[in-house]
C-alpha cells in the first residue's frame, strides 16, 4: 500500500504548492555589473534591518528589465539592475503588462578599463587606436581599406610592436554598448573613417560601419564575464582585455591597466569626467510594489544613502564611482518620484 500512500501524499503536496504564502523578501535581478554592488547592499541591509536579506540574481541588464516588466504581483521581481539606461521598448512592454510607474535610480558610475598582463609592456591608448586596431575597414592614406594592421605599432608607432589581440565583451553585455559608443564610434569619427564610410555607404549605413569589427581573429568577443577575460589573458599574454573598473581593482596584482587619452582610470578621474570611457549604473523599481513588499522602500533608501553609495561607502571601496548628484537621487527616492518619458 506504500505506493498508494506515496502517490496520494505527492498529489497533496503538489496541490499545497499552488497555495504559496505571501513573499516577504525583496527580489532583484539584472545586470551582472551591478550585481556585486547590489549584493553588498543586500548583505548590509539584511544585517542592519529587521527585514530579510533581498535575493539578488544576475542575468544581464536586458533580461532584468524584461523580468521587471512582466507584470505586477508577488511572482514578479521588484527591482531590475541595469548597466545601461532603460529602452523605450522596455517601457512599452511594462505599460502593456500593467507596470505603469517605474522609478529610475542612478547609483553611480562605472569605468571601463583596458588592461593587459602585468608582465607585459605599458600601453597608452586613444579611441582612434582602438578603432584602427579592431574595425573591419579603416582609413589608410586617405582611402577606405580593409584593416591591414597586424601589430599595435602599425596602428600607432608610439605603441609596442605587439600583435593585436583584444578580448572585448560580447554584444549581450551592457559594457559592449559603452565600448561601442565611447571607444569605437569616437575613434571612427576621430580617424575620419566616419566621413569615408558615409561617403561610401550613405548617411544611414555609414555609421553602422563604425561598429563592424574585423573577423580575422584579432578581436574576440567574450560572452562570459570578466573572469573569463582574465583567464584568456592569462593564456595569451599579449592580449588586451576590457574590464570593469571594480574587477580591475580586485586584480591589480595580475593586470596592468592602460591609459585612455592619457588619463589613468581611477574613481577620481571617472568622477571628474576626465577618463572618457564610463557609464552610469541604474536600478529600476516597480512602484506598484512599494508598500506591498516589506522593506522595499527602506532598501532603496539604504542603497542610495551616503553610508552605502557615498564616496567613502563600501560601494566606492569596491570600485563604484560615486555620483556627485547623490543628494538629488536621495530626495527623488524618498519622494518616490517615478521616471518621466525618455528624452
Amino acid at each position: 500500500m506504500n505506493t498508494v500512500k506515496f502517490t496520494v501524499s505527492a498529489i497533496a503536496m503538489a496541490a499545497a504548492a499552488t497555495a504559496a504564502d505571501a513573499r516577504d523578501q525583496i527580489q532583484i535581478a539584472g545586470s551582472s555589473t551591478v550585481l556585486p554592488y547590489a549584493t553588498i547592499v543586500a548583505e548590509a541591509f539584511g544585517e542592519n534591518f529587521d527585514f530579510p536579506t533581498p535575493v539578488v540574481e544576475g542575468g544581464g541588464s536586458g533580461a532584468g528589465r524584461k523580468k521587471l516588466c512582466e507584470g505586477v504581483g508577488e511572482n514578479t521581481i521588484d527591482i531590475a539592475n541595469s548597466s545601461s539606461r532603460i529602452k523605450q521598448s522596455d517601457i512599452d512592454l511594462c505599460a502593456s503588462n500593467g507596470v505603469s510607474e517605474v522609478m529610475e535610480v542612478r547609483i553611480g558610475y562605472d569605468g571601463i578599463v583596458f588592461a593587459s598582463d602585468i608582465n607585459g609592456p605599458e600601453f597608452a591608448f586613444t579611441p582612434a587606436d582602438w578603432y584602427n586596431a579592431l574595425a573591419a575597414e579603416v582609413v589608410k592614406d586617405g582611402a577606405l581599406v580593409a584593416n591591414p594592421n597586424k601589430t599595435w605599432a602599425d596602428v600607432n608607432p608610439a605603441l609596442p610592436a605587439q600583435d593585436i589581440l583584444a578580448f572585448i565583451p560580447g554584444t549581450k553585455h551592457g559594457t559592449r554598448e559603452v565600448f561601442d559608443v565611447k571607444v569605437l564610434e569616437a575613434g571612427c569619427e576621430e580617424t575620419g573613417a566616419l566621413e569615408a564610410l558615409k561617403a561610401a555607404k550613405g548617411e544611414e549605413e555609414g555609421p553602422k560601419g563604425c561598429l563592424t569589427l574585423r573577423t580575422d581573429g584579432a578581436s574576440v568577443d567574450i560572452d562570459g564575464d570578466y573572469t573569463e577575460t582574465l583567464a584568456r589573458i592569462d593564456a595569451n599574454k599579449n592580449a588586451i582585455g576590457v574590464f570593469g573598473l571594480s574587477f580591475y581593482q580586485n586584480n591589480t596584482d595580475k593586470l596592468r591597466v592602460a591609459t585612455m587619452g592619457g588619463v589613468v582610470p581611477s574613481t577620481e578621474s571617472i568622477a571628474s569626467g576626465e577618463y572618457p570611457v564610463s557609464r552610469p549604473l541604474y536600478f529600476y523599481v516597480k512602484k506598484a510594489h512599494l508598500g506591498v513588499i516589506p522593506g522595499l522602500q527602506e532598501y532603496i533608501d539604504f542603497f542610495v544613502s551616503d553610508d552605502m553609495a557615498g564616496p567613502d561607502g563600501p560601494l566606492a571601496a569596491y570600485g563604484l564611482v560615486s555620483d556627485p548628484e547623490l543628494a538629488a537621487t536621495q530626495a527623488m527616492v524618498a519622494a518616490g518620484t517615478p521616471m518621466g518619458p525618455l528624452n
Partner: protein
Amino acid sequence: MTDATFSGAVPRQSLYAPDEGMRRRNAAEARFRLYGLIAVGIGLVALVLLLSSVLLNGASSFRQASLLLDVPLDAAVLDKAGDRDPEKMKRVTTIGYGKLLDTALKEMIASKGIVIEGLTDKDVSDMISKEAAALVRNRVLAHPDLVGQTVSFKVLANGRIDGYLKGRVSMESAARDSNVSPNQLRLADALREEGVLIKAFNWLFITAPDASELRPEAAGLGVAILGSAYMMIIVLVLSLPIGVAASVYLEEFAPKNRWTDLIEVNISNLAAVPSIVFGILGLAVFINFAGLPQSAPVVGGLVLTLMTLPTIIIATRAALKAVPPSIREAALGVGASKMQSILHHVLPLAMPGILTGAIIGLAQALGETAPLLLIGMVAFVRDYPGAPPEGFFDPASALPVQVYNWTQRADPAFVERASGAIIVLLIFLLIMNAVAIVLRRKFERRW
C-alpha cells in the same frame, strides 16, 4: 585456399612452438588489450587531473584565518539610552560595531608591543573581515547584558590576509595589489607569532550563507546545502512513487500496442532532453502559470523531478523485467491476484534495482545547474530557508549553483571557495553512489 600454401615441405611443428599465424594472433590480442588499457588510462588521467586540480585549489577553503580579539563593548557607543533595550540598540549599525573592532585590534597591537613602520589606521581596520561587525552586533543584540564588558571574540580575518597564510598572496603581489599592503602582511606575521592570528578548521564554510564580494572570507555553503537537500527531498518524494507506478503499469498491465510503444519511445527521448529545456518548462508552468515563488526549492524540486522521472522509469522497468516470469506465475498459480503478485513478490525482488536507479537519478539531479538558471535559483541568497514544508517556498540556493556563482566573482579568493564547494558536492555524490553500489551488492538477486 590454394594449394600453394601447402606445396613444398612444410616442417611440422610442435603445438607448443608458435608458428607465424599464432604469433600474429597473439600480437593482435596483446594490441587489443593494450587499446583497452590505454582507454582506461585516458579515463584515469582525466579523473586524476580533475580531482587534483579541484583538491589543490579547494582544500585550503576548509581552513580559515581568524583573529582572537578582546573587544570592549563600550556602553557609550552601543547603548546611548543606557537601558539595554535591544530595540533601541538596533540603531547602532555594523559600521559602529566595526569601529569598536578596529579600536580593539589597535589596542591589541599596542599591548603586544608590535611596531610596524608606516602602518596606517586603514591598514589595521582592513585586517578584520567586514563580516566580524555583524557577528559582534548579533551577539550583543541577543545578549544585551554583555554591553559594558570586555568580551573575547573569534572573528574572521580579511580574505587577503587569509590568502597570505595560505600562500595565495605574497609580499610581491601585495605591493601591486590595491586591496592589501605589505605592511598588513608584516602585521599579520607579527600577530601570528603572538597567537592572535590563527588558522583553524572552517566550519563556517559548511554552515554560513553566501557573502558579497567585499567579504569572500565569510562565504559559505549553508544555504546551498539546505536548498539542495530540500530539492532532493521533493525529487525523491515525487519521482519515486510516480516513476514506480508508471513502470509497474507499463511493465505489468499495459497491452503491447502502438500507444505503449509510443510512450516508451517518448520516455527514452525525455531522458536525453537537455536539462535547460526542463528549466524553460518550469518557468512557464510552475512560476508563470501556477504562480509558485521564484528562487524556491519547491520549483527546483518539481523541475528536477520531471528531469529524473525518465531515469527512474527506465531503471525500474529494467528491474521489473529482470524478475523471472516464473515468480509471477507461481504467485498467480497459488491464487494471488495480479496486484498481490506484484506488491508481494515482484516489487520486493525488483526493489534493489529500483533504489539504485532512483539514487543515480537523484545524484544526477543534485549536480544539475542549467534548469535552475531559469527559475531564479542562481541568485545571491543569504537567509536560510525555514523548516519544511514552509521552507520549500523560501528562496534558497543549490550546491552546483553556488559553484557557478563563485566562479564569476572578481575577488580571487572565490576561486578557492568554488573549488571547495566542488569538493563538498563531490563528497555528496560519492556518498550517494556508494550507497547505490552497496544496495546493489547486498540485495541484488540473480536468477
